[in-house]
């Protein structure tokens, strides 16, 4: 089973798409799709071979390129892909999408294929223990309702229990479901209204949702939550200095790899890293920074530095009181 195979090459994929969807296509459209789904320089190699009879998949008619292959063209799955599907069917979250009967049926379709991996092959050794209960029928129902609401752009009525045990009812437009690998849980990213000029993304833990029902209100288009989330990032990023000792640089760069960041060398063994974050990510980022101890130093922004210094001052006072 080859992972790095030409079968998955993006040139093959874009040609497949042309054959299946765009039976009659202009060179301009072809150019657009290649630029959109392949690499930056693919057009130089690929376009002449598709338009000038080199591979012969298309012929020119009335200024358009028409497929010479059948409309039903498809690429059958590879064993690697079937084997991956079998692996996915073993995960406990799969029941949020498929019933037991459906899982058994799909397994039967690929009865001669072994799963690519099993849950027992992996151990997430620092994952949090209070994971969501994916086997809970209410949870599954809420999850499916929210998926339907996102796809249909429908507002939902949610009864939610807050961290402090208060129950609140509210109407939201669900935009995405966010899965946290560290917490092994889902959160809903939603807005109160798609018509707001400056909407805020509300984050609700799925495990705290007590009830959710679809309303009759829909939105023409989901808001651009990337823009909203990016706008929520502090204007001034956290600025940290890393002394490259005890592999600290490599460790820090890896640990902060899932933040938007930029790094530069400022002298022989010191590096400056800017990390972009918002208010909701602040405590988590602070905890991650603390875990490095003296190997990294926060130098900005002012608020983030203050939070860190407060913790250190409190720790000093605590140790002095004991001694």
């Amino acid at each position: 089973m080859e992972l790095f195979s030409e079968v998955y090459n993006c040139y093959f994929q874009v040609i497949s798409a042309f054959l299946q969807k765009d039976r009659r296509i202009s060179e301009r459209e072809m150019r657009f799709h290649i630029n959109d789904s392949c690499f930056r320089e693919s057009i130089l190699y690929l376009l002449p071979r598709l338009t000038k009879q080199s591979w012969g998949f298309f012929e020119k008619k009335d200024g358009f390129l028409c497929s010479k292959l059948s409309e039903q063209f498809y690429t059958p799955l590879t064993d690697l892909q079937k084997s991956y599907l079998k692996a996915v069917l073993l995960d406990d979250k799969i029941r949020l999408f498929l019933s037991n009967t459906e899982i058994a049926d799909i397994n039967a379709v690929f009865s001669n294929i072994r799963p690519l991996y099993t849950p027992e092959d992996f151990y997430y050794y620092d994952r949090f223990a209070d994971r969501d209960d994916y086997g809970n029928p209410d949870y599954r129902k809420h999850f499916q309702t929210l998926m339907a609401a996102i796809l249909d752009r429908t507002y939902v009525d949610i009864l939610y229990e807050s961290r402090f045990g208060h129950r609140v009812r509210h109407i939201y437009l669900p935009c995405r479901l966010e899965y946290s690998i560290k917490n092994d849980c889902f959160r809903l990213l939603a807005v109160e209204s798609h018509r707001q000029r400056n909407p805020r993304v509300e984050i609700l833990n799925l495990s705290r949702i007590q009830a959710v029902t679809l309303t009759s209100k829909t939105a023409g288009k989901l808001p651009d939550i990337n823009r909203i989330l990016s706008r929520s990032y502090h204007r001034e990023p956290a600025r940290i200095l890393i002394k490259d000792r005890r592999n600290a640089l490599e460790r820090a760069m890896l640990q902060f790899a899932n933040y938007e960041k930029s790094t530069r060398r400022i002298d022989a063994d010191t590096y400056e890293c800017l990390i972009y974050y918002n208010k909701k990510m602040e405590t988590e980022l602070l905890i991650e920074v603390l875990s490095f101890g003296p190997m990294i130093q926060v130098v900005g922004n002012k608020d983030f530095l203050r939070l860190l210094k407060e913790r250190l001052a409190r720790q000093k006072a605590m140790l002095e009181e004991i001694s």
Partner: protein
Amino acid sequence: MSEFKELIKSFSKSREYVRDFFVYGFKTRDEFGGWSGRTYDNERRRLESWLSGYVRAEYKGKEKNIYLSIDSNLLDTNPLYRVWKAKSFTDNDVMLHFYILDYLENSKAQTADGVTDGILARYNVMFDAQTVRRKCNQYAQEGILLKEKRGKEVLYRPGTPFRKLLSAYPGLADAIKLYQLISPLGIVGNTLMENGSFANDLFRVKHSFFVFTLEDEILLALLLAMHEKRAVHLSIKSTRTDIFKETEGVPLKIFVSARTGRRFLILYLPDKRRFSSARLDAIKKVTKLDIYPAYPEIKEKLEKNKKSAWGVSFQNESRTHLEHVKLTLHIKEDSEGFILKRLEREGKDGIIRKTAPDTFTYEAEVFDANEMLPWIRTFMGRILAVESDCPKLKQLFQRDFSAMYRMYFSEYPGAGAKE
């Protein structure tokens, strides 16, 4: 001097470059050691081509510094998957792919000779029968074509279209939208989305390390060896010193850190009779060896031992069996319940006790207490005492705290602490 090509034959060299650009993101032409300037220029151009849209450039004086800026919280898929779609191919590869599959889709099962003749008749393209047979066999091995023997003839036919499965089980497409982002070898899920012509319009992922995908070829080889219960020979390049070392062992499990962005292979070393670990990103080559007869027994032993491993270490410096760690923390009961919650969910079944008003202890027994230090530091501001039968732990904690305090409260702070 070789001509620049966007596609590549083998992934291993580019893997190092993409990793360095993605993880570090600050290396200039001169800082990349080991390869010539021309190689750097080609790799950089390739990376800019593969990942255009995510590549940013900064200038340091006259030097151009490019880096990858990827915020995993905001993406529908992992942009680094694109590097897996850059395998080079020949004109014959691409033509045979489309003509063979299209011809077979519209015919009954055929021999390789029948396919060769059919392609000539239907598309007016001539191939050598041997070339067609080789491609049919390659695709049968990949699972794309089904191969059956009827009498003396070998017949080929295509597998079922994925779209049939998707229309019978609509929930499957939504599941793939999620798993391609969060599962091991998610790149395969991403190729399924392409095959089924759908995109992820439902999910986002948090705490995902997109860079993991660069190790997927190594992971795949290890999983296959694990499932066959085989020992392996590994070529490992130290992440600190760049020195290669060769090792042999029995691969048992992949330990994943959801916090630090590292994945480890846990393997058993039969000659040393102990468990060991190797970072997946440091493993450069995997060679399968013989089946290891006692595989089930050592796997069971690992399952028992993993409960007492805080991270990936199965022994400590003093070679004692387990080390005891006790933290005493100041936690305001009425307003800081979330700290207790943190201890419960992150503390791996450690025992939490209330010992006085607003004072709690957390106790655990682990193989290597030093592995707990980064976690202990995260409670800075609440720690009343750190106790352990590993004396180094307390010393390290105190040393680190003093260094941090000096760093932030001395008049002339510098980056990092003096050791």
